[in-house]
């Protein structure tokens, strides 16, 4: 009977194309608005590294002002100082660890036809690539010796390799960056990390950087700080090194801890490190050190912005309004079918038969509305892309799961909207209609 009902539903659509299309449009608009915001929220809040998100921990050390917390009510700063970052790296107490920061510099292409351009640089340690499952096209990351020796090496993104070397294997080649020559040791495959959780201070939805180099080079090459820098007291000395060794926080610290025992041991290490620093005159606040895994860290930083959540609720309410309109249109449509319903009831259709027939009709409208809604959602997402540019590139695509959610939402909501009109259609008194036909 389902195929029969489906055929009747298509005929009914053709009989009332304007009314049916209005319903499709109402559902499509509701679904389109909903799916746009659901997609943005879904991608914003998705686990960017599901295999390891429980094992990667962000380190917070409370080295802040003894008279006021870094963040109310009593939170430690969201980055660490150069001193602490390098100390923790030297201690090597985690299975893997990498302090990091964003810097920048001018790239001078060898090809004289290309102009120099600014680029972002990720300063990190050698474990960075293994910790974050960074995929390589050519070569690999540098090793820990290169960290210690402050080797002039870089890993470049695929896009940068395409731009500078035409996509060829550039391992061993030289690139001039920030006024120095660097040897390329690795080229990444396409790597999009959404959200880019390892440094939310510079934007959780920024692209990953095009250059990666050993972080100790920051000191020797006096590389700039392109990320957020927060200070609670003035540097004791002037100049680059005075600022670098100040109590200003500008560095992210990530560690990989494979199980709870390792996590507890590392936490104990952090506390004893803080005690040690307190003995040296730093860390004047009580111990308030923290380890947050990836999802905890994203939640702590409100990576899913409050206004995105408000937009989600608004769009759900908009869908509700669209569905209320659909209910009205369905009531009008089904009341226009009273003659047909009466005839079917007279010749033997049960109320259940009539209900199922109209439920399929409602479902068909829902599915068509859902498909049209997907189109509108794509438009909405590309609109976000236009408004926010690169910032939103990764937010503006739907995966198959979201397409399935859209169609499911359309089907369920249209059927819910259709329940009352469909039920009403089964209550038509056939005798009153048949004589008047």
């Amino acid at each position, binding site marked *: 009977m389902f195929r029969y009902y489906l055929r009747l539903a298509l005929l009914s659509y053709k009989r009332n194309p304007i009314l049916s299309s209005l319903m499709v449009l109402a559902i499509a608009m509701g679904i389109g608005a909903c799916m746009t915001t659901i997609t943005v929220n879904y991608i914003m809040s998705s686990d960017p590294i599901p295999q390891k998100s429980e094992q990667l921990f962000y380190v917070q050390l409370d080295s802040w002002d003894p008279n006021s917390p870094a963040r109310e009510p009593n939170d430690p700063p969201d980055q660490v100082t150069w001193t602490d970052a390098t100390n923790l790296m030297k201690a090597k107490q985690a299975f893997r660890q990498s302090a990091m920061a964003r810097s920048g510099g001018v790239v001078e292409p060898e090809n004289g036809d290309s102009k120099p351009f600014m680029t972002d640089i990720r300063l990190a340690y050698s474990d960075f690539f293994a910790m974050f499952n960074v995929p390589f096209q050519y070569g690999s990351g540098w090793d820990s010796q290169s960290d210690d020796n402050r080797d002039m090496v870089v890993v470049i993104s695929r896009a940068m390799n395409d731009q500078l070397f035409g996509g060829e294997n550039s391992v061993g080649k030289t690139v001039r960056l920030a006024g120095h020559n660097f040897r390329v040791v690795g080229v990444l495959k396409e790597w999009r990390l959404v959200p880019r959780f390892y440094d939310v201070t510079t934007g959780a939805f920024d692209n990953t950087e095009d250059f990666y180099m050993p972080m100790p080079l920051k000191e020797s090459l006096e590389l700039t700080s392109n990320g957020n820098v927060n200070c609670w007291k003035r540097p004791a000395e002037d100049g680059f090194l005075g600022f670098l060794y100040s109590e200003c926080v500008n560095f992210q610290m990530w560690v990989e801890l494979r199980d709870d025992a390792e996590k507890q041991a590392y936490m104990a290490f952090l506390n004893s490190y803080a005690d040690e620093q307190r003995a040296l005159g730093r860390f004047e606040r009580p111990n308030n050190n923290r380890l947050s895994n990836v999802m905890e860290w994203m939640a702590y930083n409100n990576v899913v912005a409050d206004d995105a959540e408000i937009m989600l609720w608004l769009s759900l309410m908009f869908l509700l309004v669209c569905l209320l309109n659909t209910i009205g249109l369905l009531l009008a449509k089904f009341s226009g079918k009273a003659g047909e319903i009466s005839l*079917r009831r007279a010749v*033997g259709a049960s109320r259940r038969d009539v209900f199922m027939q109209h439920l399929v009709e409602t479902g068909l409208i829902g599915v068509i509305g859902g498909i049209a809604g997907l189109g509108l959602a794509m438009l909405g997402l590309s609109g976000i892309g236009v408004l926010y540019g690169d910032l939103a590139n990764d937010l503006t695509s739907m995966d198959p799961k979201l397409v399935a959610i859209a169609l499911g939402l359309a089907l369920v909501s249209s059927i819910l909207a259709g329940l009352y009109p469909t039920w009403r259609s089964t209550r038509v008194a056939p005798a009153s209609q048949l004589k008047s036909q």
Partner: protein
Amino acid sequence: MLTMTNVKKIFRTDLVETHALKDFSLQVNEGEFVAVTGPSGSGKTTFLNIAGLLETFESGQYMLDGNDVSQLSDNARSKIRNQKIGFIFQGFNLLPDLNLFDNVDVPLRYRGWSASERKQRIEHALETVGLASRQKHLPSQLSGGQQQRVAIARALAGEPRFLLADEPTGNLDSKMAHSVMELLQDINQRGTTIVMVTHDPSLAAEAGRNIFVRDGQVSELHEVNTFADVVNG
């Protein structure tokens, strides 16, 4: 076949109560062709609706085919309508988007028969009314008389034992009306019991028995060709 005893039907609104049938009693035997006549508002159509299980009633008893159908559930009444009763309406009530084949198929869809069995019955029914060659046509492509023939084919396709016709020729000219009557008589002669409501004395005269309804009650029963006498008083 059909026995109604003291059936009472009241239509109620907030302001008015209308007694459509008052102690309505009637028996129709198997194989009969009964014409029901009477003035407008006398209760003819209400009787037909109750007979076709499209309406419930306040009191009394209705026996159909030996079974008491007075208190059946909505589902049970649908099933009986589907299996035992065929309907023919004044306005044909064909579905305009469906071709003749699909229109005749409507009651059979609820019968649970296979596609091949339905096809065979539909083709036979359309053949019986002389429209086998036009099964792919839409109702709008047919004359009024032909549309009523399709409606008759739809009523016949499930081989009901009981055919209810409400003014089946009311929308037809006299030539077409007599053609439809001939068809109904032919169907009746093959064993189907027919109850027909009509305003037309000449058509009523062609039925085997006439029943005159007045003020919701059977006024008098007449044999063939006595309807005119009743009308003339």
